[in-house]
């Protein structure tokens, strides 16, 4: 029987010739990930189960990224717990301040994930690595603990949705607009329990960073994973980074999909998700006059070098509107350094923005950009739920780096063409 790309990776890791949607399998993992929020819960579960040693100290990654450098004593305690565990277990991949970055930008950059891998992470945006042709999915802390202990995880084999990209993205259209368009079309549970597999001639026009952004938000449609086929760009990205050999799987031509969607990338418009759901998408003619208080450019969704370049293209020689707090967060130190070398950081500071050390902070309302009562923020992050970035009456508008930067200049939700 024909299989999807996702199913082939699962089958290979379960040691099976074939799997089909709905089948329960037990599979071997290439990497287990947790952060400073989910790690402590997982470590306690690991110890509760009498765990002495992790199965493979090279296949566990702990990234301190949500509340670091620590925002308060409690979060410092959480990191300490992870740090002590990493030392005790001799973990090869523990990333603390100075080495850390936002996990889903950091692990691909460090070559810890790559094509053909099976990865679970105690963070919902673990689905990001599908951009590299890996099957990766978010789990909770208990599954993560069991993964550390056994090196394995059970899965229900998902069915899949097929998205065929045609054409070349129009001006100012990036991966963010594409994935928001898709979520607007199928809804926040449109891909519940399923794989989202991306195909078509349009894929070659998408940078790796576009693909990371698209797979990153697959969870926002309820998906188990999002995945791109491996092409020359993927191989070039992994070359010199990825520690293992890429394993390339392709969906069978006659693989079954629950639904198929064709998307003309050249016809897309800048797309923004209005409060309070990522599916509440609107294009510029429907925006109206949304006056804003803050802009955030960063996160595991849009904190990569291409994202910063988009923002700099708009902000170069301009200044943010007085009263719009503009916070820019490179996702890793490597990205930060590259942004310094390219002069992007100078552009941002001259434009009146601040540039922060890597952190997930404001995206989840942790710190570094909390919103007050009734405030509005245009953000390149991934969720705009009630209270996500601060006060329950505050509002988050999810957008691309182009739109976020243009909005910072205009003081209202705007496209680069409007400024």
């Amino acid at each position, binding site marked *: 029987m024909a299989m999807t790309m996702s199913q082939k990776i699962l089958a290979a890791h379960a040691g099976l010739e074939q799997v089909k949607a709905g089948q329960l399998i037990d599979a071997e993992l290439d990497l287990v990930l947790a952060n400073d929020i*989910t790690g402590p819960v997982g470590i306690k579960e690991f110890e509760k189960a009498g765990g002495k040693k992790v199965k493979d100290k090279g296949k566990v990654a702990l990234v301190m990224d949500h509340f670091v450098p620590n925002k308060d004593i409690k979060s410092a305690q959480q990191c300490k717990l992870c740090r002590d565990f990493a030392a005790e277990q001799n973990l090869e991949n523990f990333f603390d301040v100075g080495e850390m970055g936002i996990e889903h930008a950091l692990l691909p950059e460090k070559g810890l994930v790559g094509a053909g891998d099976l990865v679970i992470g105690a963070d919902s945006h673990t689905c990001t690595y599908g951009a590299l042709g890996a099957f990766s999915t978010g789990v909770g802390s208990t599954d993560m603990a069991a993964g550390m202990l056994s090196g394995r995880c059970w899965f229900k084999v998902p069915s899949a949705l097929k998205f065929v990209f045609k054409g070349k993205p129009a001006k100012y259209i990036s991966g963010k607009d594409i994935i928001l368009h898709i979520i607007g079309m199928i809804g926040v549970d449109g891909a519940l329990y399923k794989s989202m597999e991306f195909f078509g001639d349009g894929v070659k026009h998408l940078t790796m960073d576009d693909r990371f952004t698209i797979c990153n938000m697959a969870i926002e449609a309820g998906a188990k994973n999002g995945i791109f086929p491996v092409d020359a760009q993927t191989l070039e990205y992994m070359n010199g980074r990825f520690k293992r050999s890429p394993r390339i799987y392709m969906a069978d031509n006659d693989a079954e999909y629950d639904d198929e969607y064709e998307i003309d990338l050249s016809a897309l418009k800048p797309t923004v998700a209005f409060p309070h759901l990522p599916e509440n998408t609107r294009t510029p003619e429907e925006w109206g006059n949304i006056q804003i208080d803050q802009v955030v450019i960063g996160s595991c969704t849009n904190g990569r070098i291409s994202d910063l370049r988009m923002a700099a293209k708009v902000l170069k020689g301009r200044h943010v509107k007085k009263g719009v707090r503009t916070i820019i967060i490179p996702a890793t130190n490597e990205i930060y350094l590259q942004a310094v070398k390219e002069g992007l950081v100078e552009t941002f500071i001259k434009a009146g923005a601040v540039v922060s050390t890597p952190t997930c902070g404001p995206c989840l309302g942790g710190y570094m950009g909390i919103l007050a009562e009734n405030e509005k923020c245009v953000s390149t992050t991934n969720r705009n739920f009630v209270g996500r970035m601060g006060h329950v009456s505050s509002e988050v508008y999810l957008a691309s780096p182009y739109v976020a930067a243009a909005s910072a200049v205009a003081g209202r939700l705007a496209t680069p063409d409007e400024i």
Partner: protein
Amino acid sequence: MKVQGKVFKFGNDVNTDVIIPARYLNTTSHQELAAHCMEDIDPDFIKKVQAGDIIVAGDNFGCGSSREHAPIAIKASGVSLVIANSFARIFYRNSINIGLPILECPEAVAAIAEGDTVSCDLGEGVICDLTTGKSFKAEPFPEFIQKIIADGGLMKHLTKD
């Protein structure tokens, strides 16, 4: 395993950020998490909820983050069961793993009202609205998952013997 309690009713897409806001994720204490359960969707929830009470909600309950803190907060608040039209997948798996009973039953969701007293036999999947006298049948979990939930979660289940 039988549960019974008063119903708190919620809509569609109840996400993990409103179940337990990230500003409280700097702890793993179950009681501290419970103290802020549902705070951003119903600030009085934690004052009103009593041991055994039941949450009834619409589609895609628990969407968003992978935080296990969400089902932990609900369970530690005293809630004995969540009935919804559907659950987001990570929340679904986390609930089983930490031993929070959940059931999918759109017929029950449509008929049960806020404040009704509801009982449920988790083994049979039979939900009874004692206020209206109506009963509904949900698909119960297979026995091995029921055992995980009854033992209080995956780790307790695995280390039981």
